[in-house]
């Protein structure tokens, strides 16, 4: 097995294992803490896929910011862990079945489809290429996202502000 394969299986195992902890743990704080290795595993996958810039942003935003936000929200509500309450709702059984079915379906679809290998090569300096793309072909998307970001920022502040 090549080095890349080992890296892939290790990272996939980390991602999925932590993901499993996230969704099954009864302790909310454990769930949130398990998000970090899940995100970092995904980051590793991005690096394997030659997307260093996305990997960097993933760590910065997901592992660094969103996890902290979620931890904050957990600590500010329900006195934290949520160990005292039921965490599963009444559709747990059906839900599990549907999720498993979805996983099976997606895997079947992904393996059965004959993906055509594309031509061309990734540019050597991806951050530069991404920047160029954002300011040329994708400028509309870029500006649109900026507006959404600004508005959601203001919205979040407005919603979370204590009314007095």
């Amino acid at each position, binding site marked *: 097995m090549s080095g890349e394969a080992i890296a892939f299986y290790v990272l996939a195992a980390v991602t999925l294992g932590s993901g499993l902890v996230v969704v099954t743990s009864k302790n909310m704080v454990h769930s949130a803490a398990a998000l970090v290795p899940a995100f970092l595993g995904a980051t590793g996958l991005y690096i394997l896929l030659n997307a260093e810039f996305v990997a960097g942003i993933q760590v910065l935003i997901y592992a660094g910011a969103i996890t902290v936000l979620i931890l904050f929200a957990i600590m500010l509500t329900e006195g934290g862990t949520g160990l005292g309450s039921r965490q599963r709702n009444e559709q747990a059984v059906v*839900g599990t079945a549907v999720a498993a079915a979805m996983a099976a379906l997606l895997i079947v679809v992904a393996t059965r489809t004959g993906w055509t290998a594309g031509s061309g090569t990734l540019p050597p300096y991806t951050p530069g290429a991404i920047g160029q793309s954002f300011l040329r072909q994708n400028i509309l998307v870029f500006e649109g996202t900026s507006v959404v970001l600004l508005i959601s920022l203001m919205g979040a502040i407005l*919603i979370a502000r204590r009314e007095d």
Partner: protein
Amino acid sequence: MPGLTHYLVVSALLFALGIFAVVTRRNAVAILMGVELMLNAANINLVAFNKYVAPGAMQGQIFALIVITLAACEAAVGLALVLAAYRTLETVYLDEINVMKW
């Protein structure tokens, strides 16, 4: 050598984990975590397709970045809503938030 399919399978499993969390958990924050997992699964797909199907264009990575940005927005607004709901209704369990129903 892992190929495109390997990544798609990992992504599918991660996505299913996300669905599982969203569909079965009661806690709003836990559901948000499930959503984040699903978004991550989507990103893995985008980046993998970028490398294996269309390496010349950067569209996959571009959209992965946009998804990350929008995920940040979603987390901020979502958690703000959770906090607001907790302040007024004193619960974060979705089946207990039903003031609009009655």
